[in-house]
Every structure is written in C-alpha cells, then in structure tokens.
C-alpha cells in the first residue's frame, strides 16, 4: 500500500475524529488565540501610567509643562480631575499617582522662581514607581529646553538604530504567535497520538500492513492543517485589531509552517508519553509559558545577559520569535542574521520529525 495513500487516509480519519471533538478543538484554538489578547494587556503597563492631573494654575507655563509631560517618552496618561477625586482613585489603586500644578505656577516660573510640584505616588509596584520617577525629570528637561531657560548646560542627543519606534502591544502580539503555534500544534498533535492509547487502537497499528510512520504522518498532517488555520485566525486578529500586517508575508508563512511541524511533532511525542488526552493542553500551557519568556517575547533575549540568552538557543521559540518580529515589523531582535534563524528553525523541524519516528518505534517495542 502506498505510503502516501495511507497518510492521506489517516489524515482524513483524523479530521473526522477532530470534527467529532469540535468543542475541544475550538477551545484549544480559543485558548491560544485569546492569549494574544491577554499578552497585549501586559503591554499596556509598559507605558502611559495613568496619573491624575490637578492643574490649579491653568496659565501658559502650566499648559506648556502639561504638553511636555505628554511628550515625555510615552510616560503618562494624564487625567484632569479634582484633588478629592484623585485621592479617592489613588486609594482604590485606579491610578499610579497624581501631579498637582499649584496656583501661581505660570507667574512664578516666568519670574524665574522655582516651583515645587506636589506628586503623590502609589509605590506599590517598584517598576511603575521607577518609570514615573524618571519620567518627571525627563518632562522637566523638555519643558526647560523648550522654554529657553538660561543655565541649562546639557541635553541628550539621540540616534536610533531603527528609524521608527514600534508600539509595544503590536510587538508583543507578534511574539505571542509563536506561543500560539506551540499550544495549538502541540495540543492537537498530542491529542492525535494520546487518543490511540486511550482508545487502545494502537495495537491495530502493529497489525496493519501500513507503515506506522505513514499513519502518524497522516495524523500530523491533519492536525497541522487545523493548527495552520488557527494561526491564520490569530494573524488576522493581530491585523484587524492592532492594524499590524506582515512586511514579509512569505517569511511569516514559512516560519509558522516550521513551527506547526516542530510543535506538532513535539505534541506527538508528548502524547506518546502521557497516553491520556485530558492533561495535554494544561501541560502544553505550563511548559510554554516560561519558554515563551526566554524566547525574546518581551525584549531581545540578548539584553537579558549571557546565561538566559544561551539557554534560549535550546528552544525553537527563540528563532521563531526572531523571524516573526522581522516578518511583521522589520525588526532584528536576535544578534544572529535572520537567515540563520530560519535555517535553524528548519533544522529543528527535521530533528522533530526524526525524534517522533524514534519515539514511535520505542512506543511500539
């Protein structure tokens, strides 16, 4: 019997089985796709700390300073309000802090006097506190320079490696695609194999004249197709919600395809180890979260120091995130060239296929 015909038949059967398990497949895809949305929530805390603005002056210098704060490196989301309202929201943890521009600010600044701003800070989170404590002097520098005050001796002259800033949420959402690929492809791949154990149908593989490798290939072809469809949905979500579309669509397609192959094979191996379908997705989630962090999802892994960067090379997620950020935003987030990242991904895919064949042989033995 031709291997291709066997694989095709196995793929069709797997698709029928998945169709009967629609709810599980849909929930797996939903869990992965919703993670893109959830990760973007984390991106919100990267900038624009919600601060109450109590402007008791309202004069031109006060307005100029408020404008400087608005332009101080995406630091503040200023909400004008009264003192009482600010105190109430601060106590409820709905604000990071409040800034009060006192009455007489404009007049005194114009006369060359120094005015103290009252800043109240909810320092419950040291990261948020540090951002605000650095941002205020940065805003003051902008204000001082633009006002042309005498006695200012120095300023920062910035040269950027990339000619534009990429907003943090689109950056995060793209890297979350790699996590999506892991969860969906691994879960469906594991389900396809574990079901054979749970249903005690693996023995029929041994009795069948067809080669087990062809049967497995067919199953993984089906799960891969469904995974690919889920990833297309995730890409569409990113495009429609965040307005971000890939600048290199073929590289994107190739990367996601490699991820589906790699993680589908990883899933098949997991399924042969677990031999149960229920813990598959929680295990995939539990494993992928720390791997995701070490893949450069939040920032280039190289910035995190040698140990973390070296460990990251052990997972395909590192290379996948590298290519994905380049494919969407044209950013190079790994020191290795993009072609090297792509080549290593292909290598991982080949290794995953060989490892799965080996695991299958050992399972039967």
């Amino acid at each position, binding site marked *: 019997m031709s291997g291709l015909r066997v694989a095709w038949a196995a793929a069709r059967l797997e698709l029928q089985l998945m169709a009967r398990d629609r709810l*599980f497949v849909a*929930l797996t895809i*939903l*869990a992965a796709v*919703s993670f893109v949305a*959830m990760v973007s929530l*984390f991106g*919100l*805390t*990267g*900038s*624009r700390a*919600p601060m109450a603005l109590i402007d008791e002056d309202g004069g031109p210098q006060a307005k100029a300073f408020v404008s400087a704060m608005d332009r101080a*490196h995406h*630091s503040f989301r200023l909400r004008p309000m009264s003192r009482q309202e600010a105190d109430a929201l*601060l106590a409820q*943890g709905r*604000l990071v802090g409040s800034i009060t521009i006192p009455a007489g600010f404009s007049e005194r600044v114009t006369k060359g006097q*120094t005015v103290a*701003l009252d*800043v109240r*800070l909810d320092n*419950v*989170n040291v*990261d948020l506190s540090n*951002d605000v404590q*650095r941002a205020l*002097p*940065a805003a*003051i*520098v902008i*204000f*001082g320079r633009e006002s042309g005050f*005498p006695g200012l*001796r*120095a*300023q*920062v*002259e910035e*040269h*950027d*490696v990339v000619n534009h800033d*990429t907003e*943090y949420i689109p*950056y995060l959402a793209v890297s979350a695609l790699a996590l999506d690929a892991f969860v969906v492809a691994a879960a469906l791949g594991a*389900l396809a194999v574990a079901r054979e154990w749970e249903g005690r149908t693996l023995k029929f593989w041994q009795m069948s004249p067809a080669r087990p490798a062809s049967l497995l290939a067919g199953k993984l072809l089906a799960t891969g197709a469904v995974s690919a469809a889920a990833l297309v949905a995730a890409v569409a979500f990113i495009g429609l919600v965040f307005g971000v579309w890939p600048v290199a669509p073929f590289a994107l397609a190739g990367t996601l395809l490699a991820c589906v192959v790699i993680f589908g094979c990883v899933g098949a191996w997991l399924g042969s180890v*677990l031999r149960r379908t*229920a*813990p598959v997705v929680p295990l995939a*989630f*539990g494993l992928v*979260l720390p791997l995701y*962090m070490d893949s450069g999802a*939040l*920032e*280039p892994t190289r*910035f995190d*120091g040698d140990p973390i960067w070296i460990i990251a090379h052990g997972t395909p997620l590192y290379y996948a995130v590298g290519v994905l*950020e380049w494919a969407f935003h044209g950013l190079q*987030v790994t020191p290795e060239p993009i072609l090297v990242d792509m080549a290593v991904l292909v290598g991982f895919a080949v290794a995953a296929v060989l490892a799965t064949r080996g695991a299958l042989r050992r399972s039967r033995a």
Partner: protein
Amino acid sequence: MRAIWAVAALDLSVWLRSRWAVAAALLPPLGMAVLVGLLTVSVGQQPVALVVEGRGQLASRLATLYEQDEDAYLLSVLDRRTAEQALRDQRVAAVILIPADFDERARSGDGRVVLELNNVDIDVSDDIRRAAARSVAELDAPQLGLLGELHGPTEGILLPSPYRIAIAERDLRDTNVEFLQYQVVPILIMVVIGVGTLSSATLAARERERGTTRLLLMAPPRRAALVAGKLLGGLLATAAVLVPLLVIGAAAGVLSPPLAHWPALLALLAATAAMASGLGILIGLAVRRPRVVTMLSLNTAIVLFFLGGGFTTVAFMPDWLQALSGLVPTSYAIDALRQALFYPDLLGFGRDLAVICGFAVVSAGLGTAALARSLGRA
C-alpha cells in the same frame, strides 16, 4: 455532617489519586509563576555601555551620575569601539557617549550627551530615554534626582533650579514592593481558581460519565448532604494544594502580610475557592467529557486571571476593559489580596470580600442546584 464529610473525603481522595488532574490544574499557574520570575529579569535594569571621552569636571560629574543610577542600568564603561560593537551584537541596548568636547560646549549651554539607542523594543528604549534625561537634569539641578524628590521640597528644602521646577514626591507606602513579589502573588488566585474549578468540574463530570450518580442516590444520605459534600470536596481539593503554597510563601517571605491581616486573607481565599468550586460543578455538569472539562476549566481560569488584573495593572486598561474587569470576580480577589499583603490597612477589603462572597453564593448556589437537578434526573 458525617455524610457530607464522607462524600467530600471520597472526592478528595479520588482527585488526589488522579495525578494527571492535579498536574493539569497546577501546571499553568506554575508556568505562569516561572514566567513572572523570568519577567523580573526583563523589567528594571537595562544593559547600557558608557563611553567617557570628556576629561573635564562636568564630564566626570555626569559620568558619576550615570554610574550611580544602578536601578536603571547594568552599566559597562567601555571605549567607543568596544561599545559600538556591543551595540551591534545586542549585548547592550544603548551606548551613552560623553564626548571629548563636553565641558567646552556645556559652558556655552550646548553640552551634548549622545545616546545611541537600539530601539527595537519601545519599552526598553523609553526606560533608557527617561533615565538618560534624568541624569542630565541632575547635572544642573541635583534636586531632580531621586533623593531630591523624596527629601527636598517635601521636607521644606526648595533649592533654586535652572529648570524652575522641583518635585515634592510623597509615596503612599513606606517601602516599595519588589516587582517579583507584586506579580507572583496574584498567581495564588490563579491556583485557587484553576484547582477549584478543575477539581470540582472533573469530579462532577466523572460521576455522570461513569454512571455512579445512581449509586449515590441509593446511599442513605439525603440529596442535600450529597450536594454539600461535593462542594466541600472541591474546597478540600483546593486547600490540599493551597495550604502548602501558603506555608512555602510565608516561609520564603513572599507572603508577609501584617499579622492582623491573616484572618482576612484566609477568608478571601476560602470565598474564592467556594466560588471556583461552584463554577467547576456547573462546568462539569454542562460538559461531562474529561478533556473538554479540562479545557473549559483552563480557559475560564486564564480569562478570569487576566481580566482580573493578574498579569497587568487594571488602572492601565482602557475604560471599557476596566468596566469589564469590574464584572469579573477575580479583579476583586486580586485587589483584596494586594491590599491585605502590601498595604498597612484593609481599605476597601470589606467591599471586595463581600463581592467575592456574593459571587461564591451565586456560583455555589447555581452549581449545587444543577447538581441536585442532575441527581434527580439520574
């Protein structure tokens, strides 16, 4: 009471013997905890190279300011060539160059600090921009440094500043909470929700799938006792996981609320567990198949965790999402947990606990009603 306890103890022992079920409930929160632990490496200090080519007093003073800002940078003082190579290799995110003519130009008000920035990541970039600007501000206005903010105008010391603005900072708390502690603690809530939901859902589904519901009905205890026992079983399953975590957290100093806050904390966790158990029973009765039950419980726990502000700060969310978060019980649980752990008083805690208890009454009520009805139909 004996009947209730017997049913609960049986469910607990069944669940504890299902190693895969326990693993399925624990792995996502544990993975999330490791994720957050690694996250602390990403936030905070950024790797930056400092190149000091200026030999004058001002250049030296500015270099010292950069070197002293240990919260902002992992600073390496390098020569220009090595620094630029490090930037190309991504070993540093930025190079701060104090050029040779800095002092001369500064005397005419045009001193330039050159910041060469790898701005692939805007979060890292903005951190560096803010910090670099602050050090420049401190050169001309020392009171704009952190010590000046905290101990200057707030203590009545207002020095003249060429920028004409000083900052009088008042912090709400005596000490900052470390980022790791702040982020890891809500994972307790995720554990409670995940384990409570999954254990109750799995056990409820199991009875239906195996057809043992009729055997339960034939037993002497009344239906109400069976239902109460099921709910208690879910609570005990959650406690079996949660109590060791609380002990470990307290011993490690991660969980160190004021002593008087411990009863409130335990009440909060118990109410959250009751809510999760009721929800789990509903899921288990609605879905029945084990792997779908697992998936739905996992999805529910993750959505509740994220929308509740477990991975982000609710204040940063858009208004519509904050409104949605207000409908999610976990937002109250996480708020109350942080209040109990990180604040000296329990302001707002009573309201949050009342809301959680309300959700618990509703979900437990619905869950037990559904279970009682399914027992009646068995």
